[in-house]
């Protein structure tokens, strides 16, 4: 119908729809490419994102010699700022073979190190320094010497009977291996969470579950709200009074109290995904019911409804043919908002520990919960919670954008010129 064309002309709707579809499709398609169970514990606490390569495999793999200078990279990463400060301090304070300007000029760690190697003398008297300080200097010197030594390592295997070490391999400093020849490696795009699960795989699964909860809860809420609103508005009288009373009652009681009651009755082990969805749905319908009722009230006095009555139509037929299509545009928008708010509600509930069982399923809320419980933000493990937050934000944002687009189509006054 021409209405659908109109909807797809709306910029907001299309952008929202595209974003949501991308997310949705990735949760369906990506699992085929990702191996592994999202709930499988593969690593340790908050491993950083990146590729992890099995060290024994590298020893066994074919070695390639690359004529690249390994020294400056080693120096840059192994000589910390603390080490540099230590060196500078000693050179300026206690060394008398080098001037202050020379130290200042040596900005680059490499230059500093060269200066050190030239002038370091453990025998120079350092008045008033502790033993620990002197020992740290010698350790630093050893470290630097080690870096500069050209010797590599030897690999020895231990004989299981005699305990003797037999040299198997010699590793030079410039031997490299090729990534594809290493059989055991694992890339964690988003690292691991507190349990050691692969965050990325878990995230995809969590998004899918949260979307599922969102749609189930949204459908339940919209359906109940629609039926209650239509009946209360159209039939009026005692039916309206009872239904409005129930609506108000449910508005006042927060959903988590109902959830606590349900989880207590289930034995405190946590819920499964459908129970959570149902509970969210059952507590979210009141606001839909209220607005549908208001619209029905104003529609029931319209001429076409009166004419239907005069043509002998039954109550059910009038509600379905003469009232429902007129609230349909509103209900569609309400549905989208219900889905978005259900996803958020699940996140909130899981964070309070009232959501689905962690051991069985991954949801966005659960991931957030564990991240906070294990203090991921404090320990700098951003990968454990920032992607989750972004996903929630993106999903609800795209749904709301679709909603705004629909609103503009149905309500021409809201269109911008």
């Amino acid at each position, binding site marked *: 119908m021409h209405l659908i064309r109109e909807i797809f002309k709306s910029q907001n709707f299309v952008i929202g729809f595209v974003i949501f579809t991308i997310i949705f499709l990735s949760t369906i398609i990506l699992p085929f490419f990702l191996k592994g169970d999202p709930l499988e514990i593969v690593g340790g606490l908050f491993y950083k994102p990146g590729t992890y390569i099995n060290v024994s495999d590298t020893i066994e793999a074919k070695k390639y010699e690359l004529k690249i200078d390994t020294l400056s990279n080693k120096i840059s990463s192994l000589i910390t700022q603390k080490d540099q400060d230590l060196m500078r301090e000693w050179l300026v304070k206690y060394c008398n073979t080098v001037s202050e300007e020379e130290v200042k000029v040596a900005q680059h760690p490499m230059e500093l190190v060269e200066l050190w190697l030239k002038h370091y003398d453990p025998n120079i008297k350092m008045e008033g320094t502790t033993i620990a300080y002197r020992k740290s200097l010698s350790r630093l010197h050893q470290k630097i010497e080690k870096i500069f030594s050209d010797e590599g390592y030897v690999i020895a295997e231990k004989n299981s009977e005699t305990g003797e070490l037999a040299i198997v391999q010699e590793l030079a400093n410039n031997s490299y291996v090729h990534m594809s020849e290493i059989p055991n490696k694992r890339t964690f795009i988003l690292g691991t969470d507190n349990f050691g699960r692969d965050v990325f795989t878990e995230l995809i699964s969590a998004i899918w579950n949260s979307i599922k909860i969102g749609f189930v809860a949204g459908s339940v809420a919209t359906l109940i709200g629609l039926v209650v609103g239509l009946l209360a508005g159209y039939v009026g009288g005692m039916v309206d009074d009872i239904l409005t009373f129930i609506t108000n009652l449910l508005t006042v009681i927060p959903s988590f109290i109902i959830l606590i009651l349900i989880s207590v009755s289930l034995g405190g082990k946590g819920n499964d995904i459908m129970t959570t969805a149902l509970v969210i749905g059952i507590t979210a319908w009141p606001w839909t019911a209220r607005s549908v009722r208001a619209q029905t009230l104003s529609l029931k006095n*319209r*001429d*076409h409804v*009166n*004419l*239907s*009555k*005069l*043509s*002998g*139509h*039954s*109550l059910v037929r009038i509600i379905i*043919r*003469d009232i429902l*299509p007129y609230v349909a545009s509103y209900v569609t928008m309400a549905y989208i908002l219900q889905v978005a708010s259900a996803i958020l509600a699940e996140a909130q509930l899981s964070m309070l520990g009232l959501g689905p069982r962690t051991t069985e399923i991954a949801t966005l809320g659960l991931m957030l919960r564990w991240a906070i419980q294990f203090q991921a933000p404090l320990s700098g493990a951003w990968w454990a919670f920032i992607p989750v937050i972004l996903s929630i934000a993106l999903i609800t944002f795209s749904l709301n954008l679709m909603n705004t687009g629909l609103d503009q189509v149905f309500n021409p006054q809201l269109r911008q010129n």
Partner: protein
Amino acid sequence: MTTSNDVILSGRGVTRVFGYGKKKVVAVNKVDFDFKKGEIVSIVGESGSGKSTLAKMILGLLNLTEGQIYYKGAPRDISTHKKRKEYWKSIQAIFQDPYSSYNIFTKVDSILLDCIKMKWGKDLAKEKKIELMSQACSFVNLEYDELANKYPFELSGGQMQRLMIARIFLLKPEVLIADEPTSMIDACSRSTILDMLLKLRDEINMTIVFITHDIGLAYYVSDSIYVMKDGVFVEKGNADDIILNPKADYTRRLINDVPKIYEKWDLSSA
């Protein structure tokens, strides 16, 4: 113009109150009326006089707070849906705004099909249905084939109002309540609508009750006039008597306030 002296619809002490306590509004206050068969009656009043409320009560769309309406001499009983359906075979309405009288999601012939179903039941043959609908459309100068698959927003106001009359032609009720049927129609099409209604009345001796604020229209088209103000009838009687010899002050003022052509419009009392 044939009138028999049978009173087909009457009311005694008909009252409607909205709200309660301090916010009580008495829209219709103990009115009595008698409509004869084949008569054209107008209920004239300004906005807020209660005429639309009275019309809805006569139609059975609104309950009476007090009083009784009599149909063909006996008290009207519309307590069940079935009884209401029976009642609506004899009493129908056309409304003021042709645009809002149609369900915009259904095609226009559904209006006529619903009437056929109401009067002849579901089991009528398809060709017979089309024949009836074409007949009804040609009575109102519309082509059934042109309209059949259209939606309400594809027609003009005049066409939609005429389709409403086609619906009445199919149902042939005893009484028609016409609530401001021409106020939203162009002046040139107005007489078309009025002519069609009068023709229907002549053919089937249908009583027509016009609800209007236009006293000129009431005079032009009716046999008797009821003048309504604040929920009561201030004057009722033969159209000529009321317009040419108004007795109530309100009626006199109502007639004076309308701009005229042949008499001078007296603005001094404003």
